C-alpha cells in the first residue's frame, strides 16, 4: 500500500468515526425524547394544563407550575435585559483598556461558568434573608437574573463587536456623541444578536430548579401567583417533585410536564434562531 493510499484510508476512517460521534449524541437524545413522549403524551390534555396540583396523580395539573415559569421568565427578562445590555455597552464602548477593565472582563467570563446552586445560595442570603423578599417570585427572578447576567453581557459584547468600526467612525465624523452613536447605530445594528443571546440565556433559566429550590420555592403551591411577591413553583421543581414520588402515575405526570417544559425551551430557541437569521439577512456589511 502506498503512502497516499494509506492517507486516503485514514481520511475515510476518520470520516466514519466523525459521523459516529455526531450521531451518538443525537441518538441518545432521540431515544430519551421518544421514551418521554411515549410515557407522557397521553397524559397531556386541557385539564392537565389547567388543574392545580393534587395529592392524587390522576387529578394533578401543572397550572401553577407553568404560570410560575412564565412569571419567572418575564421578570428575569425585565431585570436582566437592561442590566446586561448596559454593562455590555459600557465594557465594549466606554471602558478604557485598563487593568481594572481586564479584571472585570475575565471575572464576568468566569461568572458564566459558576454552578447555578451557588447562585441559589447567593440569592438566599441576599434577596430572601437580607432584603427580606422571602421565597417570592421576585427573589427567584432576581436570582435567575444574576445567573444569566454574565451570559447576556458576553453575548451583548459579541453582538456589539460585530458592528464594524467604520459605522462608528461614520457616525462620529458627523458630529455624533458616543451615546448617540451607540443609540442610533450600534444598538439597532446589533439588537438581533443581543436579543438572540438574551433568549438563549432565558431558555437556560427556564430549566433551572436547583437555585430556586435553594431560595425556597415550594413544590406545592395551591394557587396561581398574582403578584411578584407571591410564593411560586416552576415546572422543573414540579417535575423534580413528581419524579421523587413512588407512585408510577406521578412518573407519567412528570413525563407530561417534561414535554411541556421542552416545548417552552424549543419555542424560545426557535425564536432566537429566527431572529438571528433575520438579522443576517437584513444587514450585510
Amino acid at each position, binding site marked *: 500500500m502506498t503512502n497516499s493510499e494509506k492517507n486516503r484510508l485514514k481520511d475515510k476512517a476518520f470520516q466514519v468515526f466523525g459521523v459516529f460521534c455526531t450521531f451518538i449524541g443525537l441518538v441518545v437524545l432521540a431515544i430519551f425524547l421518544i421514551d418521554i413522549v411515549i410515557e407522557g403524551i397521553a397524559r397531556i390534555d386541557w385539564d392537565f394544563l389547567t388543574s392545580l396540583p393534587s395529592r392524587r396523580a390522576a387529578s394533578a395539573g401543572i397550572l401553577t407550575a407553568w404560570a410560575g415559569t412564565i412569571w419567572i421568565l418575564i421578570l428575569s427578562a425585565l431585570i436582566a435585559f437592561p442590566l446586561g445590555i448596559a454593562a455590555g455597552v459600557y465594557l465594549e464602548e466606554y471602558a*478604557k*483598556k485598563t487593568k481594572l477593565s481586564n479584571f472585570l472582563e475575565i471575572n464576568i467570563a468566569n461568572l458564566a461558568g459558576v454552578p447555578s446552586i451557588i447562585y441559589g445560595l447567593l440569592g438566599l442570603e441576599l434577596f430572601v434573608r437580607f432584603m427580606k423578599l422571602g421565597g417570592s417570585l421576585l427573589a427567584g427572578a432576581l436570582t435567575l437574573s444574576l445567573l444569566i447576567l454574565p451570559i447576556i453581557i458576553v453575548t451583548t459584547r459579541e453582538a456589539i463587536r460585530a458592528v*464594524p468600526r*467604520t*459605522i462608528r*467612525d*461614520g*457616525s*462620529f*465624523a*458627523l*458630529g*455624533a*456623541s458616543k451615546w*448617540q452613536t451607540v443609540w*442610533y*447605530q450600534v444598538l*439597532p*445594528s446589533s439588537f438581533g444578536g443581543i436579543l438572540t443571546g438574551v433568549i438563549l440565556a432565558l431558555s437556560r433559566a427556564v430549566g433551572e430548579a436547583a437555585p430556586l429550590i435553594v431560595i425556597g420555592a415550594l413544590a406545592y403551591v395551591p394557587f396561581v401567583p398574582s403578584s411578584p411577591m407571591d410564593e411560586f413553583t416552576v415546572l422543573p421543581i414540579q417535575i423534580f417533585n413528581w419524579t421523587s414520588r413512588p407512585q408510577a402515575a406521578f412518573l407519567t405526570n412528570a413525563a407530561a410536564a417534561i414535554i411541556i417544559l421542552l416545548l417552552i425551551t424549543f419555542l424560545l430557541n426557535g425564536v432566537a434562531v429566527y431572529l438571528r437569521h433575520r438579522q443576517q439577512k*437584513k*444587514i*450585510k456589511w
Partner: protein
Amino acid sequence: MKKPSKLEAINLDAYYGDFHALKSINVAMEEKAVTAFIGPSGCGKSTFLRTFNRMNDYIDGFRIDGQILLDGRDIYANDVQVDELRKEVGMVFQKPNPFPKSIFENVVYGLRIQGIKDKKILQETCEKSLRQAAIWDEVKDKLDKSALALSGGQQQRLCIARALAIQPSVILMDEPASALDPISSAKIEELIYELKKDYTIVIVTHNMQQAGRVSDYTAFFYMGELVEYAKTKTMFTSPHDTRTQNYITGRFG
C-alpha cells in the same frame, strides 16, 4: 492672488503611546483647493488627516503636541467641542460606510443628531446634498430603500452627500476611491474636482495618478515626516527631494 490658508499645522507632533507617528509637521492648506497627502503605508498621512477632525481622540494612548488651526483657531484648545468641530470638518472614509438605514436617513443623520426634526428642512437638505454629490438622479426614486442595496461607488457618493448635509467647509477624504472600480473611482474624482469650488478638500491617497489628477497641492510624507509640500504640478514634474522623486517614480526602497 494668494487665497488665505484654511487649515494649518504648527509644529505638530503625534504619538501612539511610545511611537512617534508625526514629527514636527508645519503646513498650511489653501482654502477651496484640493491638497493630497501621499506617501508609503504607515508614513503618518492618515494619522495627520484624522487630527483635523480629531478622529484620533478615541484611540488609547494617542496624543499630540503643537497646534492645528482651522480658520486661525486651535481645534485642540480646551474650549473646542468636538461635535461642533466635526460640523465644520466632514470626513469620508476608505471603505464606503453607509449606515444600515434608508438612503434618506443616511443623508439626514447628521441633522437628526443635531436635533433637527423639521421634515421640510430634512427633505430639502437631503435633495441638495445628493445633487451636490452627483447621485440624486440615481437614487431619487428609492430614497426610502436601504442604502446597503447601492453599489460600492454609489455608497461612497452617498457617504459624501451625508458629509455635505451638515454643511462643513472642509472635507477630509481618506483614500475615498481605493475600494472602488475604475469607473466609480473616476466619478469620485470628478466629484472632488466639482466640490473644490465650494469646499476645502484634503485627500489621502495611495494612487499617485489620482493625486496628480485631482489635487492642487501635494504633501509627501515619509516615516512621520513631511518631506515635501508643493504645488502638485511642481511635485510631479520636478520634485525637490530625492525621496519624493523615488516615491513618485515608483523606485522606492
